[in-house]
C-alpha cells in the first residue's frame, strides 16, 4: 500500500527567507500524523502549500500517486483534499446545515441548473447530513452558525471539511481555544475519522497530540528535525532540546 498523500522535498521561499525547507512526509490511511513546532516553524506555510493556497517553490506533492503540485486549490479539494482553518471560517449568517450543504455542493456544482433549488440537491443534502452526523452537530443543524458555541463552531469547521467527502484531512489547530470537554469530543471525532481518512494535524496542545497521533513530525525553522511515533519523539534528544525542552 502506498501513502495517500506523499510530500517530497517541499520548499517555500519568501524572498530570502526559507519558510519551509525540503520537507518530506507521508500520510497514510488510518493514521493521524501530527506536525508540531514553535510559532514560525513553517507549519502553516506547509499546510497552505498542501492545500494549494500558496505555491511551492520546489518539491512535489502527490495525492494517491497522482502529482498535484501545480493544481489549483479548488481542484485539489475536489480530488479529495479537505482542510480546516485555524481561524474559524464558517459562514456565520447561514445555518449549520446550509454551511455543510454549501461545502458539499462543490462536488456536484452544476451551476447552470438554476431552475433547481440549492436546498433540493439530494447529493449535497446527503453529504451534509452525513457530515453533521459525524461531527455530532445533528441537533444544532438548523441553528444559524454565528450563534453556535465556540466548540460547536470548531466542530462545524471540521464538518464542512467532511462534507466535501475528502480522503485526506488537513486540520489546522482544530483544538484552538477549546475547553476540556470540547477537546475530548473533538479527539473522539478524530479517532473515529482516522479509520477512513488520512489526517494531518497541526496542533499546539501537546497532551492531545501525544494522545492521538500515530506519527509526529517536528519542525524547527522550516526544517523537519524528527519524525516518528510519539514514543520515539518523546525520547528524541534533538526534539527535547529544540522544542520540548522549553516546555517540559
Amino acid at each position, binding site marked *: 500500500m502506498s501513502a495517500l498523500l506523499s510530500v517530497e522535498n517541499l520548499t517555500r521561499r519568501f524572498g530570502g527567507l526559507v519558510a519551509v525547507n525540503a520537507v518530506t512526509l507521508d500520510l497514510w490511511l488510518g493514521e493521524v500524523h501530527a506536525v508540531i513546532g514553535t510559532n514560525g516553524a513553517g507549519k502553516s506555510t506547509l499546510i497552505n502549500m498542501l*492545500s494549494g*493556497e500558496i505555491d511551492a517553490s520546489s518539491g512535489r506533492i502527490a495525492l494517491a500517486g497522482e502529482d498535484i503540485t501545480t493544481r*489549483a*486549490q*479548488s*481542484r485539489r*479539494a*475536489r480530488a479529495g483534499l*479537505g*482542510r480546516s*482553518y485555524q481561524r474559524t*471560517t*464558517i*459562514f*456565520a*449568517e*447561514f*445555518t449549520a446545515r*446550509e454551511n455543510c*450543504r*454549501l*461545502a458539499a*455542493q*462543490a*462536488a456536484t*456544482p*452544476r*451551476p*447552470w*441548473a*438554476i*431552475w*433547481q*433549488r*440549492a*436546498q433540493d*440537491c439530494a447529493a*449535497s443534502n446527503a453529504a451534509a447530513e452525513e457530515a453533521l452526523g459525524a461531527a455530532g452537530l445533528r441537533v444544532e443543524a438548523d441553528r*444559524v452558525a454565528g450563534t453556535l458555541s465556540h466548540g460547536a463552531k470548531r466542530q462545524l469547521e471540521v464538518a*464542512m*471539511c467532511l*462534507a*466535501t467527502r475528502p480522503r485526506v484531512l488537513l486540520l489546522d489547530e482544530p483544538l484552538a481555544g477549546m475547553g476540556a470537554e470540547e477537546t475530548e469530543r473533538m479527539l473522539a471525532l478524530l479517532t473515529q475519522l482516522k479509520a477512513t481518512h488520512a489526517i494531518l494535524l497541526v496542533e499546539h496542545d501537546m497532551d492531545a497530540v501525544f494522545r492521538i497521533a500515530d506519527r509526529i513530525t517536528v519542525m524547527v525553522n522550516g526544517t523537519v528535525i524528527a519524525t516518528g511515533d510519539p514514543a520515539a519523539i518523546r525520547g528524541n534528544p534533538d526534539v527535547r532540546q529544540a522544542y520540548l525542552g522549553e516546555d517540559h
Partner: protein
Amino acid sequence: MKNVSATMRHWLPLACALALAAIGPWMSPYVADFVVKVMILSIFALSLELLVGMTGLVSLGHAAFYGIGAYATVLGAGRDGGSIAWLLPLAMGSAAAYALVVGALSLRTRGVYFIMVTLAFAQMAFFVFHDTPFGGGSDGIYMYVRPTLGPIDMESRWVQFYGVLGALACTYGLLALIRRSRFGAALAGIRVNEQRMRAAGFAVYGYKLAAFVIAGALAGLAGFLVASRDGVVNPELMAWHNSGEVLLMIILGGLGHLRGAVIGAVAFTLLKEVLSTHALVGPLADQWQLTLGLAIIAFVALLPKGLIGVAARLSPAATDAGQKLDAVPAPNAKVTP
C-alpha cells in the same frame, strides 16, 4: 406569522407587476413614461445587485455595460432599423462580451482595487465612444427607426410600457431563480468567505466571472431598452457618475435583497424628482443638488441598511424569516492596505 410574510415575500413582487400592468392603460403619457424610465433603471439596478449584493463584488463601472448595450442597439439598427430578434441578443451579447474581458482582468484584483479597475475600464469605454467618430462622438448618435418584431414596434408607447415591464419581470424572475439555485448559493458563499469556498473545492474565479458576465448582459438589456425608448444614445450613459448613481440606488434600497434594488431605483428617482420640482419644494428646487446631497448624507447616517432595513425595523416578524441567505452582506471589499 412567519409563513404569512414568507409567502408574501414570494408573491408580492408578482402582485406588484400585475397591478402595474393593470393600471397601465389609465396612466397619463408622462406617468407611463416615468414608470418606464424607473423600470429600466430597476433592471439596471438589479443587474448590479447580482454583483454587489449577491456576490460581494463592488463595481464602480457598471454603466459601461449599460452604455454598450445601448450603443450596440443603435449601431446595429443603422439607418433602417432592425428586428428585436437580433438587436436584443446583439445588445446583451456585446455587453456580455465586454464584461467577459473586463471581468477576466479585474477579478484578479480585490477590494478597493476592484472598485477602481472596474471604474477604469468603464472610463476606457467612455473615451472610446466619446473620442472616436465610431459611435457619433461626444454628442451621441440617433436611432432613426426603433426596433420591431413582427407587429411589435418599440415606437408604440404601450409596447414600450409592457415590453419593459415584461423585461423587468423576467430579470427579477431570473435573479430570484439564481438566488435560490446552487449557483446563487455558491455566490452567497463567495460573498461571505471566498477562501473557504476555494478550500471546499469551488472554482471561485469562474463563478465570479459568470456572475460578472450575467450582470453585464442584464445591464446590456437595460441599455437596449433605454436606447429603444429614447432613440438617442450618447457617451454620458457610461459616465462614472452614472455608475455611481446606480450603486446609490441599490444601497438606498438595501443590499442583499432583489426588492431593495427596485425600491432603491424608485426611491432615488422620485427623491430627485421631488427635490427638483418647483411646484413641490418652491425655490429650493433650484438648489436640488444641495438638498439631494444632504438627503444622501442623512440617509447614510440614519439608515445604514437601506429602505428595506426600515421596513424590517417596523415589522420585526418579517426580518427573521428567510434571513439565512438573505442577510446584508459584509462585502469582501474590506480595506487591504
